[in-house]
């Protein structure tokens, strides 16, 4: 008698809180292997964990050894981390290597985590941007080029190798316990900078909901690009207020002034190339994903902000 083989999945970005949430949801039903370029994390005896640069040859050994069925690529380096060049190497060239190996070793399902930053923050953005909108961020900042390039690569592989079943997810701001991105740092701080006279609409998704979304995507191999965002919206400054942050207004015009302040003070969670997102709304339409994967976020905005209000300086 033969038992059904459990799916083998490679999860990248294992040191991040989101990957760990996804791993916890899938470990009962799947055999997981975790990798991260930053550090080796212990995820239990049942999950092999590696600290590997995707561009090194040893990375291929993992594909040989574990015979993966799927890849969940959450290991995108955030635009606030590392230098532009290292980020390009890891995000673009590293992802290309990952996709090449996936194709070579017959992977049948790939989920790539992108970001809503690819749409770019410009004054003329309509609200409820859908997946077919142009990715304007590449023309706005060289620091966001790697995010767009990563997506372009995934898109090329999506059409060239349909058998890979690639799904690209573009989530709004992922926040919640353990999240270390710039938005989470701002909501969790005592004082947060704002651009005077600008309080753009924003969307936030709780890390648990985002992990649920990724697991739903894993279970249904629908190819394509999908925004992931709840049907709820709040103005940035209102969100800070609800998180108990004191707002520090920076002069907003001319635009070069706040950029200079951010650069001089080295504001890591309010970097010059993301300032547009604190000025103009980038509201994405997550309905296509919600309908296709029957996704319904469970954690309301108030719960998210309540967490930050009571946990200043989170991890």
């Amino acid at each position, binding site marked *: 008698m033969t038992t059904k083989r459990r799916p083998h999945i490679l999860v990248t970005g294992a040191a991040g809180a989101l990957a760990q949430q996804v791993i916890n949801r899938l470990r009962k039903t799947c055999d997981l292997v975790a990798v991260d370029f930053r550090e080796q994390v212990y995820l239990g005896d049942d999950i092999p964990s590696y600290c590997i640069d995707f561009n090194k040859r040893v990375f291929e050994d993992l594909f040989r050894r574990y015979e993966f069925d799927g890849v969940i690529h959450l290991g995108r380096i955030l635009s606030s981390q590392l230098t532009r060049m290292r980020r390009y190497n890891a995000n673009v060239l590293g992802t290309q290597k990952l996709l090449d190996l996936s194709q070579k070793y017959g992977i049948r399902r790939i989920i790539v985590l992108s970001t809503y930053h690819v749409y770019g923050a410009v004054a*003329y953005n309509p609200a409820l941007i859908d997946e077919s909108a142009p990715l304007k961020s590449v023309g706005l900042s060289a620091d966001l080029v790697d995010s767009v390039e990563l997506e372009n690569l995934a898109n090329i592989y999506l059409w060239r190798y349909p058998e890979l079943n690639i799904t690209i997810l573009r989530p709004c701001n992922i926040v919640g316990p353990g999240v270390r991105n710039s938005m989470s740092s701002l909501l969790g701080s005592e004082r947060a900078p704002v651009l005077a006279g600008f309080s753009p609409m924003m969307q936030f998704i709780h890390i648990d909901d985002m992990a649920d979304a990724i697991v739903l995507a894993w279970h249904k191999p629908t190819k394509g690009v999908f925004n992931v965002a709840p049907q709820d919206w709040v*103005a940035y400054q*209102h969100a800070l207020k609800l998180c108990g942050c004191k707002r520090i207004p920076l002069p907003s015009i001319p635009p070069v002034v706040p950029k200079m302040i951010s650069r001089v003070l080295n504001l890591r969670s309010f970097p010059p190339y993301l300032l547009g997102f604190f000025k103009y709304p980038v509201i994405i339409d997550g309905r296509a994903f919600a309908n296709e994967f029957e996704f319904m976020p469970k954690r309301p905005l*108030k719960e998210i902000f309540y967490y930050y209000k009571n946990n200043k300086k989170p991890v």
Partner: protein
Amino acid sequence: MSLASLLKSRLVPAELAAQIDRIRKPIGSLGYDPWGYNNEAVKYGFSFTRQIYEKYFRVQADGVDNVPAEGPVLIIANHSGQLPLDGLLIGYALASRKDKPRMPRAMIERFFPTVPWLGNLLNEMGAVLGDPVNCAKMLENDEAVIVFPEGIRGSGKLYRDRYQLKRFGNGFMHLAMQYNATIVPVGVVGCEETIPAIANIKPLANVLGVPYVPVALPVIFPAKVHLNFGPPMHFDNTEIPEERVTERVEAVKAEISRLIDKGLSERKRLF
């Protein structure tokens, strides 16, 4: 009682707040919609607009019941008076009507979101960046949308060109056909006299990045405003060449022209 709630009780009468709450909007858990409309901010705006609507411009609105109580609607009007006061007054007329009020959305110039404070304020009051995608998504949400097809050609025109309709874009007709939206034409009379401009300093406008810089007195005159809402118009969504779409647009334009003439003939005096 906190200062905020004290101010609110003074500025926003309870019956007015109830009027806003009666108008159902597809908003999220914190009172916002995707375009930045905010139910609480609207109450202040509504209270302020009531003063200028009733006391300053003494608006006379006829046929406001021609706007259907539900479903997608495009309210098409002539644009005038340098500032978007006409949109504000049409919006208030519809939001304050006794029977089945609606809170319409106004499409605004692309320049406004770049202005600190003002851009956010307009969004909170329901104004939306004038982009076809925004208009389409709002019609999908069964909203009533105020559109000025003349755009800045209309609002920036000089006093000597008053009540002459400028070229209408065809975009609104395509959206109305695609989303099966009812068109309600409106003739606005009086806004032309609020900020009469004798010239436009184009080079300065280019330097400042604004649509126009009018030469006018720095005052808004209290002209009496007449709003005439015409009977609803429906256009089917058959595949037709652009020429036929333009003919349909011209039909709406002619109806607005008729409504303006009606308002001008009804007007007893300028102020």
